[in-house]
Every structure is written in C-alpha cells, then in structure tokens.
C-alpha cells in the first residue's frame, strides 16, 4: 500500500484529497446531526435532561408502535413488488424497441419526475375520489351502484405510491437489461429452450443487479414518502413518517421522535443490507455462467 501511494502519477493518491469537500460536507451536515439525533434519543424525558434507554424500551415493548413499523415495512414491500411487476415489462419493451419508441418510453418514464410529488399525489386524489375518473367510469358502465371508497385505503395508497416511485424502478432495470448480450437469448433458444425458460434461466438472473438496485431505491422512497402517505393514505392510516412527525411536531416529544427515527433507520438499513446481500449473490450467479 505504501509503495502505491508514493508512486508518482498513481491515480489512487489523489482520490482522498478530491473526496474531501464532499466528505467534509457529509461530516458536517449528515454525520453530526445524526450523532445529535442519537444523543437526543438517549433521554428519558421530553426536555432531554435524564439519560436512559426509556424511549427505545417504550417503542420496542409497545405492540402498537411495532405494528406501525411493521405496516410501514409491509407497505414498502407491496409498493416495490407492484413497481417490479409493472416496471419490468416496460424496461424489457424498451430494449426490444426502435430508437423512436425508446425515446417515447424514456419520456413517459421520466415525465413524473418532472412534476412535483404534491402535484402527482393530488392527481391520484382526483383519479381515486368518489367522483373521480375510476368511479365515474365504473358507474357509467353500470358495474357499481354506489362509488367505491378508494382514497384513504391501503390499495389506493399502493397504486399512488407505485406510480410516483415507478421511475426509480424502471431506470435501473433499463440499464441492467441493456447490458445483457442479446446473443445470449438467441443462444438459449438455439439450444432448445422455450422463451419462458430463457427468461427464467438467462434473462432474469442477468438482470438481477438492476432488479436489486431498483427495489432498493423504490423501497426506500416508498416507506419514507410522507406527502403521498398522508394525502392518499389519510389521517387514520399511521406509518412511521407520520408517527415521527406527530411526536416531533404536534407533541414536541423530540427524544421519542429521535428514537423512532433511529429505529426506523436501522430497520431500513437491515432491509437494504438484505437487498445488497441478494445483489452480491446474484452477481456471483451471473459470473458463474
């Protein structure tokens, strides 16, 4: 290592210096506040004067709080799965299309990112409302008598979140599928595999890095989507971001809010770690072909 750093013109010797500005910004604006958060969460009273693990004990022994955590993690899983199932064919189609259609698909995928989350979320309220598009179509077709309740329900929330977060799934998938050598599927076909078998045995494993990346991004975005969760989910569906907001803002109980954040952070880190382990295994699988 020592000889590497002293060697003139070795690119690795510059890396630390160049990373310094961003590293410093991270230390000041991310690590420091995070440490402050941990410090705050280790107090038993709202004024943060008595040290203790009381806030963590309170959360982790309370079935209600654990249920909020559980339902938030489950919501993320449902949204991620929806995005994957709907997004994969789009990414697939992209790779099989001519350049004009490709531009169109990219436009459609990116378009939601160009509008604010609030606007996209409000659009879903209009779509899912009692007099919204879906209900009026179903009613005019005579399929339903009274309007269905769709906003402020879990199903409506999943649909809205899936649409809002879709680009985060599709873009990594497009990249990953684009890297697969098209000859591989031809080879698989010429060796007698059907299209389904080719997909499961060849394409799916090779696109695994994209799937993992897309799932990680979508998952993290879905569970922390405070605006969409509160506007489409409503005030009686409690997820971690709203729980946190309630404790911090309405009740000024910062130590408990800090403990909620830390617990939430670790829960999410555990999920992300799981994804990346899967990703490593998938890469191993890909190399072993």
């Amino acid at each position, binding site marked *: 290592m020592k000889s590497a750093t002293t060697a003139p013109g070795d690119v690795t010797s510059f890396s630390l210096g160049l990373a310094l500005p961003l590293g410093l910004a991270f230390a000041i604006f991310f690590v420091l506040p995070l440490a402050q958060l941990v410090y705050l969460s280790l107090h038993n009273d709202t004024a943060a004067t008595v040290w203790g693990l009381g806030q963590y004990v309170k959360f982790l022994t309370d079935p209600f709080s654990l249920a909020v955590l559980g339902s938030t993690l489950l919501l993320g899983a449902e949204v991620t799965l929806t995005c994957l199932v709907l997004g994969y064919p789009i990414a697939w189609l992209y790779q099989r299309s001519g350049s004009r259609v490709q531009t169109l698909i990219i436009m459609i995928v990116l378009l939601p990112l160009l509008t604010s989350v609030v606007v996209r979320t409000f659009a879903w309220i209009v779509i899912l409302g009692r007099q919204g598009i879906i209900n009026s179509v179903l009613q005019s077709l005579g399929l339903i008598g009274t309007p269905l309740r769709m*906003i402020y329900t879990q199903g409506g929330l999943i649909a809205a979140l899936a649409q809002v977060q879709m680009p985060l799934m599709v873009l990594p998938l497009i990249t990953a599928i684009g890297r697969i050598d098209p000859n591989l599927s031809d080879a698989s076909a010429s060796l007698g595999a059907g299209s389904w078998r080719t997909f499961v045995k060849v394409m799916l494993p090779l696109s695994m890095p994209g799937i993992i990346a897309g799932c990680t991004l979508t998952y993290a975005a879905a569970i922390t989507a405070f605006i969409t969760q509160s*506007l489409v989910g409503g*005030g009686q569906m409690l997820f971690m971001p709203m729980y946190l907001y309630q404790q911090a803002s309405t009740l000024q109980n910062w130590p408990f809010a800090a403990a909620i954040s830390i617990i939430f952070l670790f829960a999410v880190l555990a999920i992300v770690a799981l994804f990346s382990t899967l990703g490593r295994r998938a890469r191993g699988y890909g190399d072993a072909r």
Partner: protein
Amino acid sequence: MLLDRRRLLTSALTLGAMHAFPGLSLAQARPLVFATFTGSWEEAHKAVLVPAFRKANGDAGIVLDPMLSVDQIAKVNAAKANPPIDVMLHDPGPALVAIGQDLVEPYPTDKSTYFKDLIPEAQDAMGPAPFFQVVGLTYNPETVKTPPTSWADLWKPEFKGKVGITNLNSTLGTGWLVEIARMRGGSEANVDEGFKALEELKPNLAAVAANPGALATLFQQGQIDISPGNFNAIQILKARGVPVEFVAPKEGAIAFKTTIHIVKNSPNKELAFKLIEAALSPEVQTTLMNPPYLIVPTNTKVAMSGEIAKVLAKDTAELKKKFVFQDWKKINEQRASWIEKFNRDIKI
C-alpha cells in the same frame, strides 16, 4: 464596484435603520423577521399588515418568514440567545408550549395603545390575539339540502359515509374532539365521552384527513359532504367556486385565538412591538375583515360587517355569546394521550 438595485436597496435600508436607531450595532442590523403562517395568512399579512407597519415606522425593514408554529418554536429553541425570528404567530396549543419553554417576551401592555380595546379573551399579557380562527360546520349545499344546525347532525343516518374529520395533529381536530365531549357532558379535562361519540360516528365517516387543508380539498372531490371546518379555509374554497357553506352550530362555533408574540432576546424588540401594535389596530383589522381575507377581528372598535356579520356575529357582544373558547392549558396536559388513543382506536 457594481451597484445593482438590490444592493442599493439593502444599503439604503441599512443606512435608514442605522439613522433611525443610532445605538444599533452591526450584529443587530438585520430587518425585523416575522414568522407568519403559510398560505392565506402570508398573503393577508404581506398585503395589509406589512404595508401598514412600514408606513407607520419610516419604511423599517421587515421580512416575512412563513412557517408552522412548531417550526417557529424549533428554530427559536435552537438559538435562544440570538433568535432568528423576532415575532411569532401561534395557535393556542403551541403558544402555551412557547411560553412554557421561556421563548416569549411579555407584551408591554402599558405602552400599548390598542391592548385595552381588545375583547377580554384576546388580552393575553404574554402575547395578545390579533385574530380569531373559527371552527364550525362545513357542508356541501348541493347535496345537503337542509343546512345542519348542530354538531349532533354529523351523527344523522343520512350522512352515512359522508362525514370527514381530521386527526388530532391539528388544532382543529383536537378542539373539535373537546367540543364533542362537552356536548355529551365531558370537558377539557375529560374527553372520554368524545371518544365514545367518535366510535359511534364511524359508520358515517368517509375520511379522516391528515390535516385541515387536506380535509377541505375533499369537498372538491365529493369525497365528503359535511365536516367540521375552519371559517377562513372555507371562504377560500368558496371564492374558488367550490360548493361549500359554513354555519356556526347552535352549541357555539369554536374560537381559537391566534396570538402574536415578541421573541425573547430579540434584537428588534421595539420594531416587534410596533408590528404587533399594527396588527391590533382597528385599521388593519378592519381591512383584514373585508373580502377577500375575512379574518375575524379581536379589537372591539372594529365594526363587524359583510360575511362575518352575516355568518358569525354582528358585534362583540354577539360574538362572545356565539363563540366557545377552550382551555388549552388543560388540553395540552393530556393531548399526547388523546393522540395515542386516537392512533389506536380510530380505524375506518
């Protein structure tokens, strides 16, 4: 050195301020910062209160920094010795929190011209109330043909799946729960009856919104036809053509004081006082009472007129009769446990 318009203006303002206050040190030479609320409040204050203040105080520098009450408290708390805000605006709950955390300077009532003219409920020595927010019943006149008259109407079977409420995060949601409890014999100290009533309301509930703003938009979508609602929020919707009407229920409309406070250790105490004086003055309050603002005044010298006289009260005497004030000191004591109970029990 290039002098653009903005720099020129800043320099002129600074020079002006230094001329007006010779004792001003460099560290203190920042304009008065007024943390108003976002949305219609900001618009109203920018259009009416700020010009009135500047006119009366030799074009003194002032910056509006709109944010929620809780954010105001957090910001001042983070820098108590040198607060970034000079004047705070609060709902009753957060006001008590701010006072409790020693972030507020007592209002110099003996120096004030208008303090004694306020109605007694608005005369708070820790920060007077320049405005009221009023909560009553909101309904869609196209679907609700007979206007409701009482909170109890929300439980009528004809409103099955049509009622909207907010959760207890908001002042509106919490205040309404207390009022429902009162209607059934409870009080600020005991809202058990209110929770029982909520339980019975479940078949009628179409939505529990996350905040009053989200609740109001549900009228636009036809998602709800009737709900407790804020008088001002409803006027804004009405002005945009949404079919909504506001009525004060016979039990009395809930009135929340919006109080205005000088921040402790503010470097601009004198200007802060002047701004609050302007907010209490009959001139500013009269302008704000008229369309499009329709903000309920607290100064008894203001003659009620227009929509407020029609829907709420013709004068201060009627206002006191028709408005219900709540004891937020008692409410704050138990609010955390109510929110917890609401979180657990209210699922539709």
